[in-house]
């Protein structure tokens, strides 16, 4: 019983971090139609930028602000130089996926040149844990939960105050009609790329506090976020969080009962089943045949 509760607690915390990445990935994918694998590169860039400044200044606020600035600038550059021109050429999703793979390869290899391939950890001042019988809740986990929830809350407030969800839904449904109705789709694209990247950056910093970071670390979490995106298939933050936590719970259970290496295989087996038998996602309206 204790083990089950521990797995559940760990899954909720890790699922929350996954949901930060998945919210960004889903909004970017649904709004811009870019299957943004370079999100993994953005994720690790944020973590390394934070780590770099932290070792220089030992100031968390400066380090986090710098990391956010770096990822926002990087994704702005990527959008203006690569994705937006491809969108203007009316390139299809496969083209932007290939461009995204190229960008991912460039980013992680630059990071490997700058910081090396090995795992880098933060000299952690946040150590210790709370123990309730057999159940352990570390202080890092508490920080991850508080900051992760707060970040999602900020994103929800942003959507509420700016009525962005409706605008983004509109662009997601039909970009041209959205333009006709006066929506500045280019601006909205750029905004969602930047916001999605900042969410990934926060997740990366929080994860780095726990396990450290290496240049390859972004791909696995981005692919899992992509699975959440396909399963959910809607612009709904709460559903994305629910699916992220459920998927993490499944992965952690597989890791506990089978082996860590099976968890990705089984996650992607689920993705395969969904793609084959429910392309419109688990919770979604039916897609027209020509959009499948």
């Amino acid at each position, binding site marked *: 019983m204790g083990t089950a509760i521990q797995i559940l607690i760990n899954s909720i915390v890790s699922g929350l971090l996954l949901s930060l990445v998945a919210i960004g990935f889903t909004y970017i994918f649904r709004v811009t139609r870019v299957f943004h694998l370079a999100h993994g590169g953005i994720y690790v860039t944020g973590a390394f930028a934070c780590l770099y400044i932290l070792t220089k200044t030992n100031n968390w606020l400066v380090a986090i602000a710098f990391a956010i600035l770096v990822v926002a600038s990087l994704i702005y550059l990527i959008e203006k130089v*690569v994705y937006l021109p491809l969108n203007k050429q009316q*390139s299809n999703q*496969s083209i932007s996926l290939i461009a995204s*793979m*190229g*960008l991912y390869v460039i980013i992680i290899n630059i990071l490997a040149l700058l910081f090396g391939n090995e795992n880098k950890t933060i000299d952690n001042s946040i150590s210790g844990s709370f123990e309730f019988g057999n159940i352990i809740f570390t202080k890092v986990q508490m920080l991850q939960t508080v900051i992760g929830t707060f970040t999602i809350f900020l994103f929800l407030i942003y959507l509420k105050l700016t009525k962005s969800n409706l605008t983004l839904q509109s662009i997601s449904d039909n970009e041209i009609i959205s333009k006709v109705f006066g929506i500045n789709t280019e601006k909205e694209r750029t905004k969602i790329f930047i916001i999605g990247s900042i969410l990934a950056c926060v997740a990366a910093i929080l994860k780095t506090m726990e396990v450290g970071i290496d240049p390859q670390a972004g791909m696995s979490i981005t*692919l899992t976020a992509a699975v959440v995106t396909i399963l959910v298939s809607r612009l709904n933050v709460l559903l994305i969080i629910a699916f992220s936590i459920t998927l993490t719970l499944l992965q952690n259970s597989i890791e506990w009962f089978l082996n860590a290496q099976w968890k*990705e295989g089984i996650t*992607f087996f689920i993705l395969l089943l969904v793609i084959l038998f429910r392309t419109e996602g688990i919770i979604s309206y039916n897609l027209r045949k020509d959009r*499948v």
Partner: protein
Amino acid sequence: MNYIFHILVMLEIYILLALSANQKVGLSGLISLAQAVFYGIGAYITAITITKFGFSYWLALSIAILSCVIVALIFSYIAGKVRELYFTLATLALQIIFFAVVYNWIPVTNGSYGISGITNPKIFGLNINSPISFALFGGIWVLIVILFYKWFLKTPINRLIQATRDDQIAVLSLGKNPNYYKRISIILSAIIAGIAGSIYATYTSYIDPSSFTLDESILILSIVLIGGAGRIIGPITGAIIYILLPELLKFMQMPDSIAANMRMILFGLLLVLIVRFKPKGIFGKYVIQ
């Protein structure tokens, strides 16, 4: 001198892989992120049948090709069900499932420890065991595949494969089944990648899962897109660029520790530039729609 022949063998393997990917991407318009699956099946089945059952190379190769065909049928079922990005995502899923299987099915694949002691092939009693003999052996395979394509590209079946790529509805209106032509294309692609895998396994005499990852699939796809899809010369050019790039970097006296990352940075950059400014690739004929 052996080093030059080693480079040549690797070039031949990548030419075969690129030609196999070109069959899917260039001729069928199916963007697959699972080419390393067939490469891996070719390598693993060859390795397992040789080391565990003591089969000859040619029998092992035949079983490897048969296994590739069986898995290709699963891929073709998927290609019949979903298109474009969803097909690509399905292949991505299959790639990760394949890696999980070879990594975890320890009694058969030996997991992360890999399989060693894979014996060299023999042709007419001649043992192929040196880089020069492997370069010749691989060269013969490349020649066979190129000659096959010289013939195949002119056949009516290939025209229907390309027609399926360009307009499925038009193919249907001719009373042809598009899925049948996709199936042929995927099977052909799988066979060629399987042959490359089998050459790789016997050449290195050791394989492990790290050679058949998603990164490898992305790399093979990139080689085709950079060289240009839809023609024989495109994938060959892409493979030459990929294999000779590190040699160029060495010539520029770049240390080995930097050269590996620099190669990937340049390759990634080339991929982005190609997609952005020259979607047909260097020598390609087909632009991915």
